[in-house]
């Protein structure tokens, strides 16, 4: 078992004919990921790495029964692509590009909620269920199948955490990159709930960082989970970021510092790890 993506996921690459699309399509296929089709408006009928290209997501689904999409397109085109996929019935969309306009991601999220679709990103390294499917740009090398899930805003932290889990023989069920953009398609709490429902996931490592309020938002959910959550928050010693004017301060209040995030998550029952090497120690203590 895993969450969101596995060996049966039928994956569509939006923007498959671009250079990043082509490059990562090959990588994903090499990993064994089931890439069933791609889209590139006006280039329907071509092939990329043996994968058929379609003009529209509708056509791709009709021909391939794709149910999952990963987007490799310049940021200005992401909103249209994601909403096209959502409307067409794709249930999981991974937005790799960074610099998605905030209003666009808000709109994508709104449509996703209407249609019951999960969106990751923008600016995510993607998601991997080791041994089954690798969607995005994450390196295979850090991962191996196992029993701990990870969720992080940062690609590089995901690699370090997975590497730690892999070398300590825990391995991973699924590793989820939420993305580094200021407004994200999914939040920690949503992914944590999915892990909680996955019988194979025995614990989750959640990596957050300074800024924003997505980590804090996870606290009430963590209180209710059966699955233990180990938490690392980067930026305890980072210089204070700039607030978005008075309005930002009024809306986000005292949230957003690494210390506030750690405090709130600890209070909710998460197990804090300062360094990667502490993670397997904590898991061992929890009999995971």
């Amino acid at each position: 078992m895993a969450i969101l993506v596995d060996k049966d996921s039928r994956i569509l690459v939006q923007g498959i004919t671009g250079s990043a699309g082509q490059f990562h399509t090959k990588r994903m296929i090499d990993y064994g990921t089931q890439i069933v089709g791609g889209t590139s408006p006006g280039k329907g009928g071509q092939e990329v790495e043996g994968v058929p290209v379609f003009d529209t997501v509708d056509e791709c689904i009709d021909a391939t029964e794709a149910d999952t999409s990963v987007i490799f397109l310049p940021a200005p085109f992401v909103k249209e692509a994601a909403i096209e996929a959502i409307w067409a019935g794709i249930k999981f969309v991974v937005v790799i590009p960074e610099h998605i306009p905030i209003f666009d991601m808000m709109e994508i999220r709104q449509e996703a909620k209407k249609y019951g679709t999960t969106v990751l990103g923008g600016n995510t390294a993607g998601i991997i269920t080791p041994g089954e499917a690798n969607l995005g740009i994450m390196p295979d090398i850090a991962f191996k199948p196992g029993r701990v899930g990870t969720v992080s805003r940062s690609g590089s932290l995901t690699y370090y955490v997975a590497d730690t889990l892999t070398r300590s023989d825990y391995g991973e069920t699924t590793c989820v990159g939420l993305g580094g953009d200021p407004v994200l398609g999914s939040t920690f709490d949503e992914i944590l709930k999915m892990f909680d429902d996955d019988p194979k996931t025995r614990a989750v490592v959640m990596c957050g960082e300074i800024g924003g309020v997505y980590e804090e938002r996870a606290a009430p959910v963590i209180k209710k989970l059966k699955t233990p959550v180990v938490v690392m928050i980067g930026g305890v010693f980072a210089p204070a970021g700039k607030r978005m004017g008075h309005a930002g301060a009024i809306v986000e209040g005292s949230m957003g510092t690494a210390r506030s995030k750690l405090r709130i998550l600890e209070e909710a029952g998460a197990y804090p790890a300062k360094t990667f090497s502490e993670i397997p120690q904590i898991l061992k203590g929890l009999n995971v």
Partner: protein
Amino acid sequence: MRLFEFEAKKLFAQKKIPVTQGILASSPEDAAAAVRELGGEGVLKVQILSGGRGKAGGIKKAESPDEAYKIAEELFAAKIKDYEVKQILVDPLLDIAKEYYLGVTIDRANYKIVFIASPSGGVDIEEVARTSPEKIYKEKFDIDEKMYGFEAFGIGKKLGFTGDKLKASVPIILGLYNAFKAYDCKLAEINPLIETTDGKLWAADARISVDDDALFRHKELGEMGIEKRHEEGEMTEREKQAREWGIPYLDLEGDIGMFPGGAGFGIMGNDFIHYFGGKPANFMDSGGGPSPERLARMLILLDENPNVKAIFGARFGGISRCDDFAKGVIQFLREHGLSKPMVVRMTGNMWQEGVRLFEEAKEETPEVFEKIEIHGIETPIEEISKRAVELAKEAE
């Protein structure tokens, strides 16, 4: 992208918000002339990309053209909040009866636009939010929602307006919301919204921050003379150099040069150094698969920084390969040398090959690699952090 007050006011004026009609001055002469034109008195406000101008001495009242000249001379010579003052907005003096606050921003946690209003506007609005939250009124909107006139009217009522002032507040509230939406803003604020003793309302200050990532669809800003910019005022020379090279870089106060991979690990690596008693000299983001040229530039930024006593290097070979990383670093070291000790760890894709390349190079030219320590996956990153702290202490 933060806009200057006078730019934000242009956008507000386009949405029919009554803004004070100030005059932009680039010299003390301009400022004196402006005050003359405004009838002999005015407020001089430095145009810098930072809040808190007033408290920092960047807003001054002038009661004559001569006084304006003198004040402007001082302001142009000074640095306000680390910013050079290049322009001053000379605004008419208002007879203030009351100050209100209006702002719009994004509530990221709830994926909503939030309109914020308070009858207690002015510089201390954040204090008001903390101590008297009941004086802060918030209204949330979905991203595709417009604001109806009756909603604006309701907000005006919450601000305590009645009669003609209530009617006058409606287009201001709508205009602020519409400006926020029209220009892909992250923030739009009127603080203070001033009620004058004659019962009129004026947007006396204006703050807008546009989403940089959405600038591609706002050519109209360029046509209004509002170009994409960076906030130079607060940057060190090294930060400016890094930006020119396209490297996300921030100077910090410590002595360990951070030469890490992605931004996420950069933030965490900074914490690690602290946990072991050290202090990083910088924050830096390599981006994915940096070229040899980029690696060289990253190292130059650290090597030429006199504060840096030792360098902490970490590479996770993900899509990129550790051997390519090793080749780039080795090439730099051979061509430029490195005046600081450095400890480097490689893991991930091709890490063994990376370590081997370094070892080979060390055998060939041991003098170049005298102060370079290379580690692979077997040494945890925490050990590397600890070692970097030791190296810096030794170098003192």
